[in-house]
């Protein structure tokens, strides 16, 4: 009895922390419609900031608390809203969620950078460390009582704020109808900003309280948000009292588990699986159950959608792309060092994982936060099935995971949007805790995935595996193209664009979604089954999935090229970290930083690059010029005039910076044409004149130089040319026009209309 009471108190105080986090989540979701995955990370940063002030710089506690919670947190929240979130109105749920994933990655990177883990740092003390009171014979620390008090205070303050103040009324009005509020003279943007500031303070408070219990540790603080999700979902993301109740239940479950799991009557294993991981999985299980008991999402018409990439990939370009990708990899893989080969291999593996999101997220519009989980299951299946890595084993492994993907998705399919995404996150955490962390599956922490055995080909070097993985990516890419061009592909897109129309035309939405999930799981499984090496479970962790999702969306989740771009960027990111130590910290926050800008270009970077090349289509004379230029660069290298690295750099600049600008230069009639030609030529000559093999001595620096050169030369020339008014080609105002207006035509129109356009 004594024990029960003790653990009830512990459970309630843990629940109090969850409640504070969850209420912040509810506040931002209801006022801006953005589910902030980075909410826990905000609390983590606040805890670190408080530690910095209080324990490292010895600022008195009240001042440190005030600075953290009432100055820095609100500032951070407001800034996040203003800079990042406000641009996201009217974008898809996928983009909005990805941006918060980006923020999440950014903050973890930042914390790792500023506060690298250091065992000798000052301890994070509880409030009034060492003091406790005795309640009914049980010692309860002051910290717990304060935690409890904070939760109650937050509940009261929120209640008063929402129902008794002007700002609260405005917030509730924005929740009900944002546009109507604006028409009535309300300022929804300002309300959102306030909500984000408030939410950051709540996250900060919870972070500081939790750090007092568990010390400064990035992961538990960040994953705090999972517990909070569960509580918030119990409150249906709207209802604060229910949210608080959910938080209390979660806290108690956790605490009781801790109390009784060692008892003899408590089951220690089920179906041969140890249940040791279950404590960590409790919030996820609750989240899963709470999600699944949500009412079926109803078919609704009239949802505003954002249009993304619409082009159907052509067979000719797709096959050409696939063949040249393999050719390029075969050609350059001989020149790479072993470590660079492994990094590129990792890049292609990630590209396959990103590719698994193309049919699911890109085509069908279903967000998954668990792509790596299926890769992990694929790796396990490949290792555990008999046959030691022959083709039949591989196929069987992929099929099993694909079927599992479809089955797992089935209960979750009643959900849509954010709820579906969260249930995939819950699934990923469950699999991580219950399967990947099993001693049985990963003996001595690792699992040996056999190399795929292909008849007549011996693959035993990293180079061989690199070529194998690149080939697999190309083939799977073609498969995805085939899907896009098929009946299934059209159905997936129909499902994304209008579920209501699709259903009323006779589409079984559930079956289509299951097909999408199974296909995605199968492709993901290939990435794991091809690992061909010892892999550790942490590689397939939920937190590792997030950057993959993020970079797939950044690259452009609607296209195969986008998946490649995203995957290689993820691989390239670790290239940066490994070869340029000084840039290591920058590379930590890089994916996040890129992702945060996503709101501005929702179709992804690969689509944008492809757009640049599309202007060359059908212009044979210009294509001939591009080809001739490439030949000249190659010939100069063959004649030993250019070094190998200069060849690479000049080639990339020629293709990425000069070629897309050629039509612009040729078509332009303005006097700026000469300037642009001189600029491009000068850029190219200077690039070719530098011996990059000796000028920079590490690969990473050269890669950065390439990116900078392409940006400066390519965008610079475009800046010079951009004199006339330009219209977006897809603007409805210009439908029927096949080109931009020339200068004379605009002048003519101005004379006729007696207006000045530019």
């Amino acid at each position, binding site marked *: 009895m004594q024990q029960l009471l003790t653990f009830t108190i512990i459970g309630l105080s843990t629940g109090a922390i969850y409640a504070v986090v969850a209420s912040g989540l509810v506040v931002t979701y209801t006022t801006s419609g953005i589910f902030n995955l980075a909410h826990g990370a905000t609390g983590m940063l606040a805890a670190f900031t408080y530690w910095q002030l209080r324990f490292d710089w010895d600022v008195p506690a009240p001042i440190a608390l005030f600075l953290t919670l009432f100055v820095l947190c609100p500032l951070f929240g407001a800034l996040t809203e203003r800079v990042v979130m406000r641009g996201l109105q009217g974008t898809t749920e996928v983009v909005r969620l990805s941006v918060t994933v980006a923020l999440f990655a950014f903050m973890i990177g930042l914390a790792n950078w500023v506060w690298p883990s250091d065992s000798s740092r000052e301890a994070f003390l509880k409030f009034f460390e060492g003091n406790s009171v005795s309640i009914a014979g049980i010692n309860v620390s002051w910290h717990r009582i304060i935690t409890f008090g904070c939760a109650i205070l937050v509940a009261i303050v929120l209640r008063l704020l929402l129902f008794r103040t002007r700002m609260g009324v405005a917030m509730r009005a924005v929740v009900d109808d944002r546009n109507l509020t604006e028409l009535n003279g309300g300022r929804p943007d300002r309300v959102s900003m306030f909500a984000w500031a408030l939410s950051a303070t709540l996250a900060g408070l919870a972070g500081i309280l939790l750090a007092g219990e568990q010390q400064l540790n990035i992961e538990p603080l960040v994953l705090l948000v999972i517990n909070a999700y569960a509580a918030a979902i119990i409150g249906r993301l709207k209802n604060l009292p229910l949210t608080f109740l959910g938080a209390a239940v979660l806290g108690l479950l956790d605490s009781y588990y801790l109390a009784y799991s060692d008892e003899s009557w408590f089951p220690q294993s089920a179906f041969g699986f140890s249940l040791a991981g279950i404590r960590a999985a409790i919030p996820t299980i609750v989240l899963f159950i709470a999600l699944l008991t949500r009412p079926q999402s109803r078919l609704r*018409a*009239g949802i505003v959608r954002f249009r993304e990439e619409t082009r159907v990939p052509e067979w000719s370009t797709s096959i050409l792309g696939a063949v040249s990708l393999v050719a390029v990899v075969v050609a350059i893989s001989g020149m790479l060092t072993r470590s660079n080969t492994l990094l590129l291999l990792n890049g292609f593996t990630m590209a396959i994982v990103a590719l698994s999101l193309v049919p699911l997220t890109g085509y069908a519009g279903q967000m998954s936060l668990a792509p790596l989980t299926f890769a992990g299951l694929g790796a396990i299946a490949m290792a555990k099935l008999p046959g030691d890595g022959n083709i039949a084993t591989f196929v069987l492994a992929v099929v099993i995971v694909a079927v599992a993907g479809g089955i797992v998705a089935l209960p979750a399919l009643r959900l849509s949007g954010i709820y579906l995404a969260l249930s995939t996150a819950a699934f990923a955490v469950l699999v991580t805790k219950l399967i990947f962390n099993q001693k049985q599956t990963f003996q001595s922490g690792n699992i040996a995935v056999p190399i795929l055995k292909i008849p007549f080909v011996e693959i035993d070097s990293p180079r061989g595996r690199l070529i194998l993985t690149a080939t697999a990516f190309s083939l799977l890419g073609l498969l995805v193209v085939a899907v896009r061009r098929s009946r299934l592909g*059209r159905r997936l897109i129909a499902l994304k664009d*209008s579920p209501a*129309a699709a*259903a*009323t035309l*006779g589409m079984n939405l559930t079956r289509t979604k299951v097909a999408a999930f199974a296909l995605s799981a199968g492709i993901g499984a290939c990435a794991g089954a091809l690992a061909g090496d010892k892999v550790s479970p942490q590689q397939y962790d939920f937190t590792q999935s997030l950057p993959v999702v993020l970079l797939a969306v950044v690259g452009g989740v609607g296209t195969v090229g986008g998946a490649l771009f995203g995957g290689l960027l993820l691989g390239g990111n670790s290239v940066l970290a490994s070869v340029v130590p000084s840039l290591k910290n920058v590379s930590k926050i890089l994916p996040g930083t890129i992702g945060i800008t996503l709101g501005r270009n929702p179709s992804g970077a690969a689509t944008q690059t492809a757009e640049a090349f599309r202007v060359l289509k059908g212009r044979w004379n210009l294509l001939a010029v591009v080809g001739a230029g490439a030949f000249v660069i190659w010939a100069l290298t063959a004649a030993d005039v250019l070094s190998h690295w200069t060849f690479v750099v000049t080639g990339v600049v020629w293709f990425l910076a000069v070629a897309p600008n050629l039509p612009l230069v040729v078509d332009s009639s303005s006097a700026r044409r000469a300037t642009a030609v001189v600029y491009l030529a000068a850029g190219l000559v200077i690039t070719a004149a530098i011996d990059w093999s000796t000028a920079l001595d590490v690969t990473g620096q050269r890669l950065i130089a390439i990116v900078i050169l392409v940006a400066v030369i390519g965008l610079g020339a475009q800046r010079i040319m951009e004199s006339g008014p330009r219209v977006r080609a897809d603007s409805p105002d210009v439908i029927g026009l096949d080109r931009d207006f020339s200068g004379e035509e605009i002048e003519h129109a101005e004379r006729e209309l007696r207006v000045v356009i530019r």
Partner: protein
Amino acid sequence: MSLLYVDRVMVRFGGVTAVDGVNLLARAGEVTGLIGPNGAGKTTLFNVISGMQEPTGGSVSLDSVDITDLPAHKRAQRGMARTFQRLELFGSLSVRDNIKVAAELAALTNVNAIVDEMIERVGITDIADRPAGDLPTGSARLVEIARALATRPKLLLLDEPASGLDESESERLGDLLRTLAATGLGVLLVEHDMGLVMKVCDVIYVLDLGQIIAHGTPNEIQHDPKVLEAYLGAS
């Protein structure tokens, strides 16, 4: 012989009764009109018929089979297709692929021939290869009709198909509806363009505040005092 039979259908949203015991009957080979002031419950009734909204009470039958509990896609497979007041095209697909998806869903053979036939029938040949998301409202409505027809339905539900059409387009739409009805298709038409409704409908139902206040031929409806009151607010 009735194609669609709506029996005492009731829909409540919280305290609001949007549709209040509506009976409605639509026959094959006829155009049945459903008119009423804004907020009368027309779209809600459409949603009930097409399976997007579960009714609080009452039943819906198609071809004398009770379909009240069937999900939307099963109703479509039994020969029902609809268009939407706020357009629901597949914006990332071309016009042709929009129609193709529908034909494929109906599991028809020679899909391409049917797609071409529909494109020609509603007169959208010149925009067939454009992305559907870029179309102006008038053309988009025609694409929605072509898409619905491509499933070869027995019953076509049209939710304000003429809004956004100019006069000549609207006239062509009227002719199209008459031609379709002549082939045995049943059409249920919600529309505010009274000229069109009076011209093409065989029977008209008038819905006001969730209840059917009158039904009959266009001529009868035009002279019904209750209808005049609902529309003009005068007795």
